[in-house]
């Protein structure tokens, strides 16, 4: 009696369980700091799922960008605001609204699961399976060729978007300091 264990299945189930429990903790934790740290857990397990899927470059970028940059920003802002009086804002939502929203979310989930499940076994339109990606030089090689050859215009547009976001953030931050200090900047 010998049946082999599918290690990617075990890894996927472990990461998926961590992701589901962590995201429920993000939604239902009262404290913002513990919600942020649960979100970091969720993002790490998403990186693990990308690695199970074979998208190693996206997994590395997930850890670098999400947990390295975005979540540090979140934790900084939470500690900067230091909003001690954490009232239980979950109880302010009415009971009827909660029930109706949960039912409609379940309905939406049923439709979405049916849609994605039926589209999971389509015939592949490309030829880049994992052996072909290894033959072409790995995940980073293939993705960077697609990114900088076919999608280079969209890539440059994205840099303008980030520039606009940086200018907007600086403007928002500066206007607050000027009004609170009455124009006397040090």
């Amino acid at each position, binding site marked *: 009696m010998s049946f082999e264990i*599918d290690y*990617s*299945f075990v890894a*996927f189930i472990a990461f*998926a369980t961590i992701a*589901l429990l962590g*995201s429920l903790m*993000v939604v239902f934790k009262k404290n*913002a700091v513990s*919600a942020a740290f649960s*979100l970091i857990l*969720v*993002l790490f397990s998403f990186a693990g*799922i*990308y690695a199970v*899927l*074979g*998208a190693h470059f*996206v997994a590395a970028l*997930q850890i670098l*960008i*999400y947990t390295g*940059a*975005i979540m540090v920003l*979140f934790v900084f*802002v*939470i500690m*900067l*605001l230091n*909003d001690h009086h954490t009232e239980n*804002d*979950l109880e*302010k*939502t009415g009971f009827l609204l909660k029930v109706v929203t*949960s039912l409609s979310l379940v309905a*939406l*989930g049923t439709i*979405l*699961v049916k849609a*994605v*499940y039926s*589209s*999971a076994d389509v015939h*592949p*339109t*490309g030829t*880049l*399976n994992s052996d*072909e990606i290894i033959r072409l030089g790995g*995940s980073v090689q293939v*993705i960077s060729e697609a*990114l900088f050859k076919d999608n280079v215009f969209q890539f440059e547009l*994205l840099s303008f*978007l*980030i520039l*606009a*976001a940086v200018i907007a*953030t600086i403007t*928002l931050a500066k206007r*607050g300091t000027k009004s609170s200090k009455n124009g006397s900047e040090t």
Partner: protein
Amino acid sequence: MIFQLWMPLVLAVMIFLIGLMGVIFRRNLLIMMMGIELMLNASNLLFVTFSKIHQRVDGEVMSIFVMAIAAAEAAAGLGLVIALFRTLKTVNSDSIQLLRD
């Protein structure tokens, strides 16, 4: 059981709905933004899984774009939250009533 490619799709749908639940149920602006991040991550997982199903690499490129847009969104949104906290001394979304007289 073996790992099949419909499993991450179902997981992505569940995470998306949990994130949407966070945006609808909570009143704390920071946790609402965390719900938005959960939804963006679920869409990223859908992109990567469909890129594996179709054996193309376009979905992974698109997920990199989504990550960059999420970074820009987090920076601008947290800047707005800080500006709001300076004005109102709270991060509760029910107390944003500046346009009501």
